[in-house]
């Protein structure tokens, strides 16, 4: 459950918010954070002081500090760096910048982001903040999974490690073209996706196995409209390429933005191309998600769970292979937490 022992740093762009939404917007945003999280340290972002702000945050933070970036890429930019994998992504986005003292891949501070969607006004954003930040602990008595057929062996490995009772849908045969739409409502637990995504597409897609000659290769399996119900009692973990890429999009064009608008507690996804293996032993996105769920189960709130998962992921890979591969580094850089970092999972058995 949410732990008020945490010291919350909120990084925001006062100048841009005032220009876009008026002076009153700052007080409203601050009120929303404080009324849900208690006292917060609000830090004003300016581009010219970016490096100085990083140093200030990391030198001021204690072991109980969490950082929330309130705004999108145009307000408080992600760090843009060259993709470690030569896969055509070019520059990729990471929020590790403000959280990593030395090496960018390894964050020292828990960090999450609550972005604006392009079509959101200040009232929408405040409503979203109030909803996301008021979330207490998550029960995790249920779970839902969806995987591309080609990934299903590795996906079940991750899905089985998630608390709760539930089924995983495999695509194909599942496809939105041949089945009724899915709308999530009041699910208490994790929504897990091991599917395909692309930078410019709003939905996520399955993929047939090479032995399947009948099905469409990439059937559409989920769209943003599935996340417009009451999903406050859920969190999302997706391994889709660009599953956590939201920049410049409206909420209906992006699953992460739609889910946040609907008040999802937190969302883990990649800002760029993500990687994995067809079969265990799991690695890259599968391994990070699996460690993240372990960390949640051990009682850590989402922000700490991701920071610690990234550290364990790096340690395990170096110990196993003797090096940190380029797609491991990319996994560490691009997997981004959105939403409330102070929410954790309640063990209902206790």
């Amino acid at each position, binding site marked *: 459950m949410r732990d008020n022992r945490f010291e919350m740093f909120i990084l925001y762009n006062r100048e841009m918010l005032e220009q876009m939404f008026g002076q009153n917007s700052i007080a409203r945003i601050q009120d929303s954070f404080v009324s849900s999280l208690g006292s917060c340290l609000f830090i004003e972002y300016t581009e010219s002081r970016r490096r100085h702000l990083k140093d200030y945050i990391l030198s001021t933070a204690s072991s109980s500090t969490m950082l929330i970036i309130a705004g999108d890429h145009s307000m408080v930019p992600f760090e843009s760096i060259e993709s470690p994998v030569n896969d055509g992504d070019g520059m990729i986005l990471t929020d590790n910048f403000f959280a990593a*003292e030395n090496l960018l891949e390894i964050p*020292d501070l828990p960090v999450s982001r609550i972005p604006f969607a392009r079509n959101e006004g200040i009232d929408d954003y405040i409503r979203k903040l109030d909803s996301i930040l008021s979330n207490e602990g998550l029960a995790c008595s249920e779970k839902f999974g969806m995987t591309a057929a080609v990934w299903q062996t590795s996906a079940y490995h991750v899905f089985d490690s998630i608390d709760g009772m539930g089924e995983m849908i495999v695509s194909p045969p599942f496809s939105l073209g041949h089945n009724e739409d899915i709308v999530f409502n009041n699910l208490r637990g994790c929504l897990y996706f*091991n599917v395909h995504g692309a930078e410019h597409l709003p939905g996520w897609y399955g993929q047939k196995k090479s032995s399947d000659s009948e099905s469409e290769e990439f059937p559409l399996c989920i769209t943003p409209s599935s996340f417009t119900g009451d999903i406050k009692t859920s969190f999302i973990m997706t391994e889709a390429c660009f599953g956590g890429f939201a920049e410049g999009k409206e909420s209906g064009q992006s699953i992460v933005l739609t889910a946040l608008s609907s008040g999802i507690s937190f969302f883990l996804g990649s800002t760029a191309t*993500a990687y994995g293996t067809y079969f265990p032993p799991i690695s890259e996105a599968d391994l990070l998600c699996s460690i993240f769920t372990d960390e949640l189960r051990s009682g850590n709130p989402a922000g700490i769970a991701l920071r610690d998962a990234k550290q364990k992921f790096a340690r395990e890979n170096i110990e196993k292979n*003797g090096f940190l591969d380029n797609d491991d580094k990319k996994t560490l850089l691009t997997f981004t937490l959105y939403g409330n970092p102070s929410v954790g999972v309640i063990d209902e058995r206790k």
Partner: protein
Amino acid sequence: MKENELKKLCGEKVRSDFPEFIDIEPTIETIDTDVKKYSKQLGRQFTGGEKKIYGYVYEKHVNNFKKILRIVIDENGNIIKITHSK
């Protein structure tokens, strides 16, 4: 092994297991194996960095999707892992 021998080994793997990438010319990455720099942050004393490791990256586009196949191989020709884009 020489670079062309490693490339041939990866090509054989592609031909046998991932034939859709047969016609793709891979790009070759050299993996940074210096892991000592992670020791302090991760609380372990890492050594290593002696073996050379390469990543062979095959990229193709199908419909709206980019499909990446990566084969990671050491200088002795041992395939360490094979990964795919999501």
